[in-house]
C-alpha cells in the first residue's frame, strides 16, 4: 500500500511538472495591410541560440528562400533539426490583406523564444517577421505588432517577372492586383546586405512603364504590417 501510494504521488509529480513546463500557445496573425499578401507563414518556438533571423546579421540561405520566393521548407527543416516546435502554413497558402489566421503551437520547456516569418507580396525580398520574442511564463493574452524587414539578399528593383528563386532578380507576383508592366527598375543594387527594416516600396502611377511595376497607391505600406496575438493557457 505504501509503495503504491509512493508511486502514485511520484506519478502525480511527474504529471504536474510536465504540465507546468510545456506551454500551449493559441496564436492569431492579422495582416494589417490593405494591399499586401503574406506567403505561407512559419512560426517556431526555439532556444535563444537557434533563431530564425537577426536584424544586422546576413540572412541564411533558408531565410533568403523564404524572403525571395515564399519557400519555408528550408527554414522548417533547419528549425526541426534544432528541436524547435514549429507551425507551417496555417493559412493554407496566402494570407490576404486584412485577413487573420489562428493556430496553436505546443512548446517544449527549452523552447522559450518565438519567431515568425512570411514573405510580403509584392516585394523583392521583404518579409514580415518576429524574432526571438521571449514567451512569457504567465498565462494571458499578449499582443505584438510586427514590422516589415528586408532580407538584404536582392535589389529592390520592383519588377514583376515571376522571379522567386533565390538569387533571381524580380518579384514573383502581385496577388492584390493593381500592378503594371514595362518598368525600367528602381535600382539594381542592394548595398546593405544585412537584414534591416524595409525602407518601403516606391511604386509609381504608370501601369505600362515608369520605373516600377508596383502601384504607389496600393503596394506601399507603413509599419506595423501585422498584429500577432498570443494567448498562453
Amino acid at each position, binding site marked *: 500500500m505504501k509503495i503504491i501510494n509512493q508511486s502514485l504521488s511520484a506519478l502525480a509529480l511527474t504529471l504536474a511538472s510536465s504540465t507546468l513546463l510545456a506551454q500551449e500557445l493559441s496564436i492569431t496573425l*492579422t*495582416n*494589417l*495591410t*490593405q*494591399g499586401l499578401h503574406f506567403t505561407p507563414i512559419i512560426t517556431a518556438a526555439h532556444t535563444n541560440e537557434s533563431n530564425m533571423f537577426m536584424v544586422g546579421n546576413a540572412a541564411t540561405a533558408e531565410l533568403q528562400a523564404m524572403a525571395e520566393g515564399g519557400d519555408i521548407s528550408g527554414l522548417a527543416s533547419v528549425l526541426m533539426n534544432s528541436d524547435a516546435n514549429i507551425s507551417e502554413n496555417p493559412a493554407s497558402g496566402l494570407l490576404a*490583406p*486584412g*485577413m*487573420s489566421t489562428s493556430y496553436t503551437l505546443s512548446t517544449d520547456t527549452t523552447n522559450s523564444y518565438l519567431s515568425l516569418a512570411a514573405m510580403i507580396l509584392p516585394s523583392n525580398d521583404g518579409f514580415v517577421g518576429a524574432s526571438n520574442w521571449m514567451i512569457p511564463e504567465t498565462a494571458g493574452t499578449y499582443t505584438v505588432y510586427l514590422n516589415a524587414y528586408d532580407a538584404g539578399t536582392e535589389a529592390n528593383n520592383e519588377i514583376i517577372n515571376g522571379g522567386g528563386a533565390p538569387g533571381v532578380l524580380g518579384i514573383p507576383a502581385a496577388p492584390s492586383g493593381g500592378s503594371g508592366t514595362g518598368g525600367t527598375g528602381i535600382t539594381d543594387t542592394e548595398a546593405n546586405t544585412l537584414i534591416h527594416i524595409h525602407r518601403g516600396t*516606391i*511604386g*509609381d*502611377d504608370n501601369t505600362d512603364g515608369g520605373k516600377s511595376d508596383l502601384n*504607389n*497607391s*496600393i*503596394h*506601399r*505600406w*507603413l*509599419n*506595423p*504590417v501585422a*498584429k500577432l496575438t498570443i494567448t498562453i493557457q
Partner: protein
Amino acid sequence: MLTFLSQTNSSKQNTSASFKKVLSIGLCAIALSACNDDNDDDTMVITPPPAPAEYSYTVMVTNLTYAQPLSPIAVVLHGDNKMWTTGEAASVALENLAEGGDNSDFIADSNVLASSSGDGVLLPSMTSTITITTTDRLATNLTIATMLVNTNDAFSGLTGVDISSMAIDEQKSWNLNVYDAGTELNSESVGTIPGPADGGTGFDITRDDVNFVAYHSGVVSQDDGLSSSVLTQAHRFDNPAIKLTITRTE
C-alpha cells in the same frame, strides 16, 4: 453627448423623486392621521437609493502629424464590443467620420452609453482635452476616432479598450496608428478630400475601395509620384499619428 445628458437627467429625476417620497413620509409623521389616504407602499420606502457611482475620464489627444488637421475627436464609452475590426467593412457611421470628419452618427451609435466630442478641428502639434462622465456600470470600454482631414478616408483611434479596472488618478497612454476605412479609393484627386488641402467632398455613400478596414499605407502625394494627387509632400504622415492619454478622475 446626448446620451450622456439624458442619463444625467434621469438619475437626477430619480434622486428628486426619492427625496419627495421621504419628504412626504416626514410630513405624514408630523400630520399623523391626516395621511391615511396615502399609498401604503410609501411607508416601506424610507431610505433613498445610494447615489450611483460616477466614472469620469480626461482624454488628452495630441496631433503628432506635420500637416494633417484632425476632425473633432469622438470619445465614447460602451460595452464589450468593437466599433471597427481589421478585415471587416466599416459602418456607415464610421465611413461618415473617416471620409468627411463628421462624428455625429458615430457617437449616436446604438451601442454607445456615453459620448463626448472635441470642440473643433485639432491642428498639428496641438493637444485637445476632452472629458467624459458616466454612471453606467456597463460603460466599460473606450473608443476614440478622428479623421486625418487631408486624406480620402484615413482615420486614427482605438476601439474597445477595457478601462473599467482603472483606479482614480490612474493614467494610460497609447501611440495610435492610422487606419484606412476602405470605403473610398485613395485617389488623392481634386474634389475628393474635405480638408484645407483640397476643400472637396467629404462623405460619399459610394464604396469604391476594398471595403474593409485595415492600416493605411500613407498618402503618396504629387511630390512622390502620384501626378493626379492634390496633396503635397507636406501631407505625408507616418505612424503613429496621435498620442492619447486617458486619466480616470472620478
